[in-house]
């Protein structure tokens, strides 16, 4: 496994190369240790917070903005989107309310990101 990437920990944006050599992940091109940590995570299991919207009834708008309560595996993003496209949330909701508990068994909830 080997990947070229741009480190996004700080604005310098080092072009780093992350390689898996036997059981060790080796990061080169980074100017600091934070870049090494970032590179390792990105190679092994990149995770992202997913912000999106769901259909909403009983409020000012037709859509309610939501997000995952923690980062989820990048590879699951489209599956989560497909699931969320089928649900409807009814108002009123407060920011932080859970709208889907433990979505697709990820251990992560979908939460509302505003009052509506």
């Amino acid at each position, binding site marked *: 496994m080997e990947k070229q990437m*741009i480190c*996004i920990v700080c604005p310098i944006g080092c072009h780093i190369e992350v390689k898996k050599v036997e059981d060790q992940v080796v990061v080169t091109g980074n100017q600091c240790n934070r870049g090494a940590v970032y590179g390792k995570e990105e190679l092994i299991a990149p995770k992202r*917070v997913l*912000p999106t919207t769901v*259909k909403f009834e009983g409020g*000012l*708008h*037709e859509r309610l903005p939501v997000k995952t309560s923690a980062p989820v595996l990048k590879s699951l993003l489209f599956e989560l*989107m497909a699931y969320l496209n089928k649900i409807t949330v009814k108002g009123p909701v407060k920011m932080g309310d859970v709208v889907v508990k433990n979505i697709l068994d990820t251990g992560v909830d979908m939460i509302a*990101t505003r009052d509506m």
Partner: protein
Amino acid sequence: MYDIIVIGGGPAGLAAAIEAKKQGIEKILLLERDEELGGILQQCIHNGFGLHVFKEELTGPEYAQRFMNTFHDLNIAYALNTMVMEITPEKEVHIVNDQGYQILKAKAIILAMGCRERTRGAIAIPGKRPSGILTAGTAQRYLNIEGYMVGKEVMILGSGDIGLIMARRMTLEGAHVKGVCELMPHSNGLTRNIVQCLDDFDIPLQLSTTIVDILGEERLTGVVTAQVDEHYNIIKGTEKEISCDTLLLSIGLIPENELSKKAEILLDSKTKGPIVNEQLQTSQEGIFACGNVVHVHDLVDYVTEEAENAGRAAAHYLKDIKKSKKPIEIKPETGVVYTVPQHLDYISDQVKILFRVNSVFKHHQIVIKSDDQILKTIKKNHMAPGEMMHIYLKREELEACESKLSISIGEL
């Protein structure tokens, strides 16, 4: 008669009103033309806001909600669905809403109208005029608030942050984003957005490339891209036709200053916003400005900080704290496009000066001169046009300065 009227209920207006209230000002009124508070943050459903102000990563609506909650807790008066038609130098505010046309008076005004997107007309893209061409922010509103998908096969012109964010958003919602064209040889967006919005989804970014023709009669059917040389002239023979039904434009933001002009406020030709001093006071005494109406910020966190300063300054103005010194002009020189503030009227213990550089500088220094004498230099490993820079100057450093400060970028 109001003490302060704040124009605009986005992040700048909210933070300015909250801070003025905390400073003990009672009669504040905030005016907002939309049907809710929060401004453009409400459609920016992505995360990445608040790392400086709250030390955590929030979405746009969450960032807005926190300020709205504080605003409501402080019982600050506001009016929604209210359009400001005119502001006069005498600080009269003409408004229209369902109550009719009214003229309100204030002792101080804080301008927080934000900015708007440049459109196709601003860059004069030739070709047909079919539907399917919209600014990235308009598409963002349709998709995230109204719930309409604006297209299936998408090209994006301009690599500003909104364009990058929309590339990811449209992809997640099932569209095929075919590419992002950028006229400049570098992206104007934040690196993290290039990585998380384009690289994550294998969306190509074509630098030194622009759109030279628009195809389609009723609906957009395609665009023609071409590469440009170092003078931004189109290189003949590099034209490529790309089929698409939607073109999103992310080609820059312009501070929205029609009201400032009516109030006869002087504008800076570079920032397109009011010329302000370190108190964010415009050329009209008692009229302050903050946020993207002054200059386009990279992060909402910086808007909040500036707006709090404006709110505090307006409160101090009402408490009759006077100017302390003859003005010091701040000149942007080699490598620097503009500074905010543009001049200093007061001397406080410390002033923060924001500025933008005109190209990427690696291992250079910021040179601050006072009346042509070098006051200090600051070494920087990395500076880029997309990242607003700042310096702090202390009272001791400024006291020697007679009339002119300059900021430039020099070699080490």
